[in-house]
């Protein structure tokens, strides 16, 4: 990847009144924001055509900092709001930034149904395994036995595998990476944004100030290093016995398949009814 001068990031940020940001020092959200900016910039997308939608949570605070069309909606409903935008203006690139709690707990219903419809929304799910904004309660992806402020004796809830959930619901593009692997993240984001259909990029991230502290995971750099050491590519995973894969974060594009996109289906339906030709008919 060609080195992008820092000016790029700077030119995409909002400078009137918006900084400093709300994120704790050591948080991975800023790294992901940088990845998103670099990915959209390298794709050459017009920022007027990008709508970034979020719900509530740490990662959902991202839209306000970046110079796109931005919508910070209500908890769990970002994908529902995004569906309305995409349905009405299919030519816009609709990107949802969400977290593990926002997308798979309170917003789980919208997540699976958007995947089922295969509507062309890119969901960037920053998974930090905790509710950070409310101070560290357990989420559907908090590892078993972990400590959170609402699991003082250790978490007994089994986890969601978010990518499996999306694939089970019918998502046509599913990828997983970590906040440490920024080049890979940018690559996956570019592919996800270009994909016609519902796309999910799950980014395993770190919350050193709450999750890390409660579970003695070390400093912010140590937690990022953990992501590096404890994740393997799909290719590498295939080569090792199944028991060794346990607990590892499997990175890669888990699914990428062509299937008719929802707003295109609707355009075809309108075209059939009105006798006009649908644009980009497949």
């Amino acid at each position, binding site marked *: 990847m060609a080195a992008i001068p820092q000016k790029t990031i700077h030119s995409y940020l909002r400078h009137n009144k918006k900084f400093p940001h709300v994120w704790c020092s050591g948080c991975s959200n800023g790294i992901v924001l940088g990845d998103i900016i670099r990915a959209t910039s390298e794709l050459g997308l017009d920022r007027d055509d990008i709508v970034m939608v979020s719900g509530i949570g740490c990662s959902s605070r991202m839209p306000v900092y970046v110079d796109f069309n931005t*919508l910070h909606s209500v908890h769990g409903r970002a994908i*529902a*709001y995004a569906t*309305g935008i995409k349905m009405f203006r299919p030519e816009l690139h609709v990107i949802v930034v969400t977290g593990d709690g926002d997308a798979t707990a309170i917003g789980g219903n919208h997540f699976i149904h958007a995947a089922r419809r295969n509507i062309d929304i890119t969901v960037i799910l920053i998974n930090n395994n905790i509710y950070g904004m409310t101070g560290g309660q357990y989420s559907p992806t908090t590892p078993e036995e972990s400590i959170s402020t609402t699991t003082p004796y250790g978490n007994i809830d089994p986890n969601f595998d978010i990518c499996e959930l999306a694939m089970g619901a019918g998502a046509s593009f599913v990828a997983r990476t970590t906040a440490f692997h920024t080049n890979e993240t940018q690559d996956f984001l570019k592919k996800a944004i270009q994909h016609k259909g519902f796309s999910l990029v799950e980014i395993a991230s770190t919350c050193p100030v709450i999750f890390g502290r409660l579970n003695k995971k070390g400093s912010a750099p140590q937690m990022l290093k953990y992501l590096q050491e404890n994740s393997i590519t799909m290719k590498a995973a295939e080569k090792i016995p199944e028991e060794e894969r346990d607990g590892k974060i499997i990175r890669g594009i888990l699914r990428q398949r062509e299937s008719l996109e929802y707003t295109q289906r*609707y355009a075809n339906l309108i075209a059939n009814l009105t006798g006009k030709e649908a644009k980009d008919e497949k």
Partner: protein
Amino acid sequence: MPKTVKTNKEMKETIDKPEAEEKYVLMQGNEAAAFGALAAGVNFFAGYPITPSTEVAEILSRELPKRGHKFIQMEDEIASIGAVIGASLAGAKALTATSGPGFSLMQESIGFAKITETPCVVINVQRGGPSTGLPTRPSQGDIMQSRWGSHGDAPAIVLYPDSVKEIYELSIRAFNLSEKYRTCVVLLLDEVIAHLREAVKLPDVNRYRIINRIKPTVPPEWYKHYDENQKYLSPLASFGEGYRFHVTGLAHDQQGFPTNRPTEVDDMMNRLKKKITRNIRDLVQIESYMMDDAKVAVFAAGIVARSAKAAVNMARAEGLKVGLLRPLTIWPFPDDAVRKMLKNVETVIVPELNQGQFIHEIERLAKEKSDSAIIPMQRFDGEMIPPRRILSKIKEVF
């Protein structure tokens, strides 16, 4: 000829037009709501099936794609109102239709539409509650929910028609007001009228005045998402037009960015309030029937007002001086008209299909300066209040 006064500029505009162009059609209330929305220019609908509002979605699923517009059935009511607000921010005239349980689920995002000043229309066909209640029976149980349902202070605009024709007209007006005032407008229907079929005379669609949101004329770098004018109203850009604004449910400044500064929060809250309170004359519509010499007044809305009107006619035939005051806009509450009524009559009867909701507002105003007796008349068993019951109540108080 009984004297009916409808005070509103818009209503006069349609009523004064020549009748020659009107034609009779047989129409159901929910159908009138859907076709009224189409006349107003609805181009996006998101909803979830619920009795007794489902016909609105069914009709629009058929009509919208034919016109090149969008319909989507979402996974629940929460998603429906979310999609409606998203589409509106992208420039749509967006609608959803629901009933009690769904209306409860939508409340959080209705508050979001209000704080972010995003136009949209919610049709709530009321049914008996609480909870699943009486899905196919009439109730006026959501009068207070339509005002106070969402958490926090958020003034409401709620319209309440009493006939199939008026559903059509107020459906148009709901869109007009939502576009003009940049807020969520609720069209509150009674199950009885929603499912009633009436022969209605409708003027040509083009004869209705249609209001669209004001678009910004400034270059993008000057655009403020909440740039209020002296009437507290502001132009609205859409996503994808180059303005790249921010929308948040957090308290925000005029630009739309989150703020905790007391002065900026105060400005925002005042704008939300004042755009309603400073435009009362434009918002409030009321029908005043036989009120000029009335000693007793009936205050009722929707289907109950139709019963009441029949009762007033019967009482007048017997020489009793009775009138009817019927709000077409229930929120903001028509304080001035009610004050005037309280000044002129000795007794006010308040029939409603609930355990007492409108009556609190009448009593609030009566406390100011009035010795009129306020008589409640409440029914909540899923049946209508027939005219003869209101008539006997009228006779009781004379």
